[in-house]
C-alpha cells in the first residue's frame, strides 16, 4: 500500500487530503506515481501536480528529483512552506 498525502493549497485544489493506493505488480518511481495520478484522477490533477514549485517528499524526506518507491512508502505533495 502506498499512502499519498496532499497539504495546504494543493489539497484544496485537488479536493483530496489523502489516498491509499494498492502497490502495483511492477516497479514504481515518484515520477511514475505522479503520472498515474494525473491519468487516473483526471480533471485538474495534472495542472496542479505539475506546478513548478511543487515539493515532493517520500517517507518524510524531500525528494528534489525522482526516486524509486517501495510498498509501504508515504509520499506527500505540497507547496513551498510558510511556517515560522
Amino acid at each position, binding site marked *: 500500500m502506498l499512502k499519498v*498525502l496532499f*497539504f*495546504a*493549497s494543493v489539497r484544496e485544489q485537488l479536493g483530496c487530503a489523502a489516498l491509499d493506493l494498492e502497490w502495483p505488480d511492477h516497479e514504481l518511481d515518484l515520477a511514475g506515481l505522479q503520472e498515474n495520478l494525473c491519468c487516473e484522477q483526471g480533471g485538474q490533477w495534472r495542472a496542479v501536480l505539475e506546478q513548478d*514549485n511543487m515539493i515532493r*517528499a517520500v517517507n*518524510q524526506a524531500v525528494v528534489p528529483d525522482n526516486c524509486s518507491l517501495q510498498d509501504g512508502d508515504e509520499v*506527500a505533495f*505540497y*507547496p*513551498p*512552506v*510558510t*511556517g*515560522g
Partner: protein
Amino acid sequence: MAAPIPVSVNIQTLDFDVAALQRLLLAGSGYEGAVVAFTGYVRCSNEERQVHSLELEHYPGMTEASIARIGQQAAERWPLLGASIVHRIGKLSPGDPIVWVGVSSAHREAAFSACEYIMDYLKTRAPFWKKELGPKGEHWVAARDHDSRRAARWDEDSTP
C-alpha cells in the same frame, strides 16, 4: 563535531509562556552563560491585506522531525548546550505568538547565531503552511524569496 544536544520540539495548538520555556532551557548543566530566544507573532496585516485570523497547517511527523534536525544541525555548527522550539498550529489571532526558538550556550556568539540560523531554516524547510482569513476571504500565504536568501547565506558562509 559537537556531541548531540537535547533539542526540545513542541508542535501545539495551545499558547506558550516564554518565561517558563526559558527556565526549562536553563534547567540543564549550569554551564549556560547565554540564552538567546526569539518569539514570532501573528501580525494584523500582511502585504496590505487585513488579517482577521491565521490558520496554521502542518505535516504531522515530518514537521517535528524537520525541526529536530534543524536544531541538531545548529548544534553541529555552534557549541550549544540546549535548544528548544515551540510552534503553534490551528487557528490564531493577530497578536498571538506563533513560534518560539531558544538556544543556550556558554557564550553569547553561538547563541545569537544559532537562534537566527534555526529560525531561517525553520521558515524555509519545516512543513507548515499559513492561510490568512480576512475581510476579502481566504488567502494562502506565499513563500518569500527573502526567506530563501536568508537561509542560503548560512550555506555560503560556514564560519560561525
